[in-house]
């Protein structure tokens, strides 16, 4: 089959199932999101969600599918990115193309995070408050960025909701225009990725967290940052979170420094997962 991209680098083949799984779960997430959006109203977020779970036909399944597929998309996209770095696939791509791949990971991270905020249970409310206050600590740009992307205290969830929708379509359009060939993706032998993902939410319940008492936990991928915020100034934590973007991008700009950059990346992940582990330990 003609894949349209040299899928082998000197370091080996790319793990294609990861990429297909990521794209399939993203497609499922967007489609389930469309149906959920018919019943979700940003001015009554928690009420809408409870109505979806309780009254909307297959609403509970749709919500679980949306949640689950988004998480799978995020994890597999991250692993796909690491795999591409490990096998030096960025050398086969142009700088702009690599930038968009890295950028797509951050967009998906943002979409998943806004999804948590839109739940509007205690986890969502706390996550919203934290991110708003963190952005406000950014000098000069902080206030404006907050007004554009969040402003939850002033305007409720309207901005978060619209960015969540807009960026989802932006991401999926970008991926199918510039990264994956639709013909190859929607071929019969790829449908197994969809069939594998679809039944899983029947067996697991992804419950809301209405009240967490004296100890609250944010989205799992920000637990490390939550722990860091106990020790460091929010601005430093914010810059730290953004620094992985710079590390990812540097691979294509400084290909000869691959080992040094890989060292930075491993150290970054080690520190971040260390803080995550620390959170659950104490």
């Amino acid at each position, binding site marked *: 089959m003609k894949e349209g991209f040299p899928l082998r680098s000197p370091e080996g083949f790319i793990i294609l199932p990861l990429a297909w799984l990521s794209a399939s779960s993203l497609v499922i997430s967007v489609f389930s999101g469309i149906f959920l959006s018919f019943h979700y109203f940003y001015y009554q977020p928690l009420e809408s969600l409870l109505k979806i779970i309780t009254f909307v036909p297959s609403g509970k399944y749709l919500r679980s599918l949306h949640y689950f597929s988004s998480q799978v998309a995020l994890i597999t996209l991250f692993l796909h990115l690491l795999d591409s770095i490990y096998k030096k696939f960025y050398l086969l791509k142009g700088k702009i193309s690599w930038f968009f791949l890295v950028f797509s990971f951050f967009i998906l991270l943002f979409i998943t995070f806004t999804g948590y905020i839109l739940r509007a249970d205690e986890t969502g409310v706390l996550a919203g408050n934290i991110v708003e206050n963190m952005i406000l600590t950014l000098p000069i740009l902080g206030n404006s960025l907050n007004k554009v992307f969040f*402003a939850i205290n002033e305007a409720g969830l309207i901005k978060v909701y619209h960015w969540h929708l807009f960026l989802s379509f932006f991401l999926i359009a970008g991926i199918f225009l510039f990264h994956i060939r639709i013909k190859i993706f929607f071929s019969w032998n790829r449908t197994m990725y969809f069939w594998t993902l679809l039944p899983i939410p029947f067996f697991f319940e992804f419950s809301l967290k209405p009240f967490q008492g004296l100890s609250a936990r944010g989205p799992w991928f920000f637990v490390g940052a939550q722990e860091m915020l106990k020790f460091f100034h929010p601005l430093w934590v914010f810059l730290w979170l953004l620094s992985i973007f710079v590390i990812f991008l540097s691979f294509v700009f400084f290909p000869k420094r691959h080992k040094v950059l890989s060292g930075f990346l491993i150290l970054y992940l080690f520190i971040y997962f260390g803080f995550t582990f620390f959170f659950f330990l104490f």
Partner: protein
Amino acid sequence: MGFLSVPFFKNLSFLSKPAPKKIFLSKDELSKIKEIHLGEDFILVKKGQRYFVFSRRCPHLGCNLNYDPEKEWIVCPCHKSKFTLTGEYIEGPAKRDLKPLPFELNERGLSLEIS
């Protein structure tokens, strides 16, 4: 000329600022409060005949504060900052006391405004 538009747009955002929230607790409601009352946006503490009203937002990053009845502390569930019932900072990343809210107490009850 472009720079002149910056303060304009900066101040334009204040137009979307929501109106301050007014809350009233009647005398009956006040009498039912034993020591502490956690409202949606405020914390009311009763110490004898004195009242203390604070914003429920943690001064660190704005998480909703909760009350630990065992230790009699006000606790931030996100990053574990702790405060006394009179709003003084004890420990944690917040490094500041709780934000007191202006209130008015009269024979009908207690009214406060959250902006």
